[in-house]
Structure formats: structure tokens, C-alpha cells
């Protein structure tokens, strides 16, 4: 049995959470061979790190597209999968993983379960468990055909070292002028990379996050000031980002970051499920909201009913 994992390349390096994915495959994989696929034009990537976290075989697909350009990735990975027929193929539930996986699944006409929080294997069958209905119901989904596919929510499992005896790299090159790559008809005019400061947010011990209850950019600046005082990092909800109160790279939740700090303080956050997804595994959650019935309190250990802005201001004094 073979479990293939999709490894992302960012800034010419192996993306951190991809290592979590390999380790998780190794952890649940029993006697399966754990392999990885990378599509890249990068030259100086250290692939040996994959072995450290549980990978035995790397399929390295060389491409001519630029590093940030992922338009061909799903088609090239599909070529590989048709060749090697893995039993299971898993990806991280990043925007890249969630864009590539459904294209591959529909091309192969196989099942795909999105954004899972648990994967198990029984009798070579993949059982993919995921929250639905805004986290109110868990569904365990299985596939009728191989490869059984799933995307795994980021930060579900932390990377872990394994003793692996051998590691091989199989280098591949496919014809890239294929008519079955419709996305190649689009053209990337510009790419503005995110600032990498958010990595600090993902590893932060304390996070102060703000929502629409903070109302203005000035209040967010006050929150940042307060965070500094407590050695905390600042984040925000999607709505706050959409309204320009805080930058996109500090967005916590779905389509943003998943964080797991020791202490998470939610200032004026109502607790929409898309935010909860990104912070619910924090160790201690403190919520401040003027509305006692706000859903955020259902995910909090400590609740403070009050005006978040006034609390920030009084703590700054």
C-alpha cells in the first residue's frame, strides 16, 4: 500500500506544514509506503528533510513555470498519479491544496473529502472525518475508489521525526504543452507575496485577536500596542481584514491562519464559525464581547462581558 502526500514549495523551500502532513501519513499509515510529490522549478531545495519526517520516496516533477505559479500543478500531479496508482493521496487544506485536490479528483473521477480534522486507515480504507454544519456535526467519509483523497486541516498534527532506512528521489519531466490544462489559458499579471511576519503569529504563545467590535483601525492600533505590552502577537477576523482594519497576513480562520497559542484573547469577536476553525485548538481561550449571547463564548474558557475597546484603553493606561 502506498500513501502519496502533496508537498508545497514556498519561497524556494519546502513549506513547513507539508512536513506535518508526511509525519501524519507515517503515523497512521501502518505498513504503507509513504511517498511525496513535489512540482517545482526550484534548484537548491534540500529534499533530505522529507526523510527525517517519514518519507521514503519522493517523486520530483520538474516544471518550467515560476515558483509562485501553480497553474500546472494539478495536471502534472494527475499524470504521476495515473502512472503510480497510489491507494491514498492526501494534501494539506491550504488554499493551494484546496485548489489542486478537486481538479485532480474530478480528472480521476474519484472521491475527495475536504478539510479533515482526522484521518484513519482500516483494512487499507481511508476514513476521513470532518466537521460539517459549522462544526455542529462530524462526518466520517469513505471513498469507493482509489486513490482515496482527502485534504487535511493545517495544524491537525505537528511534525515528528521517524527512523527511515532508505529514501529515494525519482525525477520526472512531463510534456507541459498539453491541451488538457485549461488553467494555462489564464495569465498571471502580477504576484504580491505576503509578508512572512505571520509565521510569528502561528508560533506565538499569546495572541490578541480583534473583530468588528473594535470598529476602527485606530482601535486595532491600540490593540497592537497592548499586545506589545504583554509580549503577544495581534491577529484579526476575516471581516476585520475585509474592512481594512488589519492586514490580510494576520487573518485567523478559514482562508487565513490556524493558530494554537497558549492563550488566545478574542477582543470584540462574535465567533463566526470561519473564525472559530482557526483558533479553537488554542490552549486557553478568553473572549471579550459586549453581547453575552455571542457565539464566541461557546468556544471560550473565560468570558468577559464588556466593551472590548474600553477594556483595551483602560489596560493601556
Amino acid at each position, binding site marked *: 500500500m502506498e500513501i502519496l502526500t502533496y508537498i508545497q514549495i514556498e519561497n524556494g523551500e519546502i513549506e513547513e506544514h507539508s512536513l506535518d502532513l508526511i509525519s501524519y501519513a507515517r503515523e497512521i499509515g501502518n505498513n504503507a509506503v509513504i511517498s511525496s510529490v513535489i512540482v517545482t522549478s526550484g534548484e537548491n531545495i534540500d529534499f533530505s528533510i522529507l526523510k527525517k519526517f517519514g518519507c521514503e520516496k519522493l517523486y520530483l516533477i520538474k516544471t518550467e513555470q515560476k515558483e509562485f505559479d501553480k497553474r500546472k500543478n494539478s495536471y502534472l500531479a494527475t499524470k504521476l498519479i495515473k502512472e503510480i496508482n497510489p491507494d491514498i493521496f492526501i494534501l494539506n487544506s491550504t488554499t493551494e491544496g484546496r485548489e489542486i485536490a478537486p481538479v485532480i*479528483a474530478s480528472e480521476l473521477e474519484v472521491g475527495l473529502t475536504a478539510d479533515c480534522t482526522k484521518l484513519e486507515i482500516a483494512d487499507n480504507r481511508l476514513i476521513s472525518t470532518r466537521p460539517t454544519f*459549522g*462544526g455542529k456535526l462530524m*462526518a466520517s467519509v469513505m471513498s469507493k475508489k482509489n486513490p482515496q483523497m482527502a485534504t487535511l486541516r493545517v495544524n491537525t498534527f505537528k511534525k515528528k521525526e521517524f527512523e527511515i532506512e532508505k529514501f529515494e528521489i525519482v525525477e520526472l519531466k512531463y510534456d507541459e504543452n498539453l491541451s488538457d490544462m485549461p488553467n494555462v489559458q489564464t495569465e498571471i499579471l502580477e504576484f504580491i507575496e505576503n509578508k512572512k511576519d505571520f509565521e510569528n503569529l502561528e508560533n506565538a504563545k499569546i495572541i490578541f485577536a480583534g473583530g468588528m467590535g473594535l470598529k476602527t483601525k485606530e482601535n486595532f492600533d491600540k490593540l497592537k500596542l497592548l499586545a506589545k505590552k504583554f509580549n503577544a502577537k495581534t491577529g484579526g477576523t476575516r471581516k476585520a481584514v475585509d474592512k481594512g482594519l488589519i492586514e490580510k497576513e494576520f487573518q485567523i480562520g478559514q482562508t487565513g491562519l490556524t493558530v494554537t497559542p497558549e492563550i488566545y484573547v478574542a477582543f470584540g469577536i462574535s465567533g463566526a464559525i470561519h473564525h472559530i476553525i482557526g483558533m479553537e485548538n488554542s490552549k486557553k481561550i478568553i473572549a471579550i464581547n459586549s453581547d453575552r449571547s455571542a457565539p464566541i*463564548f461557546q468556544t471560550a474558557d*473565560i468570558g468577559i462581558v464588556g466593551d472590548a475597546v474600553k477594556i483595551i484603553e483602560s489596560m493601556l493606561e
Partner: protein
Amino acid sequence: MKIIVCIKQIPDTKDVRWTKDNNIIREGLISILNPYDLYAILFAKKIKEQIKNTEITLLSMGPNSASDSIEYGLAFNCDRGILLSDKRFSGADTLATAKTLKYAILNNIKTYDLILTGQFALDGDTAQTSYNLANLLKIPHIGYVQDFEEIKENELVVKSVKDNGIYKIKTKTPVVISISAFKDEIYIPKAIDYINAQKKEIQILSSADINANLDEVGIKGSPTYVFKAFRPENKRECVFKNDLIGELN
């Protein structure tokens, strides 16, 4: 420009109640239009205000009651609605849903330039159907779109916001675009919009009407199945306090 907006009626996830066996209690359940699909409708409306002779078709799959969401959507200056409703469609996963939509698009709607969808649906939240659909139609897909920079009859420039950064992408039509945010003020339909919406046609089509291969739709055409469902344990019990500083140490 001919636009198709794919929409989904969903149970209000704030409001869902369950039986002991984890079935939804349908009685008293409020159904809403998936909020991301409303963003897609608002984008279509915005395009219609800029490009002459734009026609917007709302396309949905669901039970007959899903025509409520189509009717609501029509109040946003959309032209007509199509509901794919047939018990043979039920139990469909994302791939079977995409195939059903594909049949209606190829066999009934036939001509289109732009297909808009919401990036996510709040109930299932798989965010897969639009990608499946684009791949089945063999046309490009652009996801996580938050803005249009340029709209022409046969060419668009859009802003796509992903984990690693922001992409400005140019595409020719036909194309599928999924919307993840809407930054302008959200239009609230007026009474007259609702009155006009009632005059517009909502076609209800069955599997025979769209000439679907019955092996490819509904539960039969779905490569995945739910093996079990269970309620998550509530991990936290909130204790209300007055002092934040004491809790930070």
C-alpha cells in the same frame, strides 16, 4: 455577456437542531441562501451595470423549496432561474453535483461566458464543486477572487487572494470564478425588486430534462459516502469573569 451564477440553499447553521440519531430536525428549520453565493450574485449584478446586454441566470440544485433562494436572488437584477430538482439527484457529493450542473449547462443553458460561484458553502464547506465543474467543462477556474480590476466582453482581470499572496490574473472567457469576499456595500433589494423578481421565470428541470446519465448523478454517481456521523463533544465550559489581566498571567 451571459453569466451563470451557481447558488445553493442551505440550512441556517446557527439554527440547526438535531435528533438523537444526528438527523436534522427539518421542522422550523430556516433555509438561507449561502452567503458566499450572494457575493457571487452581487458580482454578477456589478458586471451587469458595466457591460451592456448582460444576462444573469441563477442555477441551483435542490428540493423544490430551493426555488425560494432563487426567487430571492432574482431580486438582485438577475434575469431568470433554473432549479435542478429530482429525487435522483439527492445524496450527491461534490463530483456528482458538478456533473449534474454540467448537464444543465451544456444541454439546456448552452451559451455562457462566465460562471460565478461562492468560494464556500457554510453547511458542507467543501469548496470543491466549482473546481470540479470547471474541470468537467474544460475551462479555466480562478478561486479566492475578491475583486475585478477590468471587465470586458470576453476578457477579465481579477484579484485572487491566497495563503501565499495576492495574484492579479487575466483570463479570457469562458471561465469559472469563485468569490471569497465582497468589499462594496451589500445591496439590499427594495420592494419593487421583489415584485419584479416574482414576474421572472424559474424553470424546474428533472434528470430527463437535462438529459443526465443517471449513473453519474445523485448517490449513485458519488464516489464518496458518509460512513458515520456524530456530534462533537463540547470541549469548553465558559466561566464569566470581570478581570482580564488576572487571566493573562
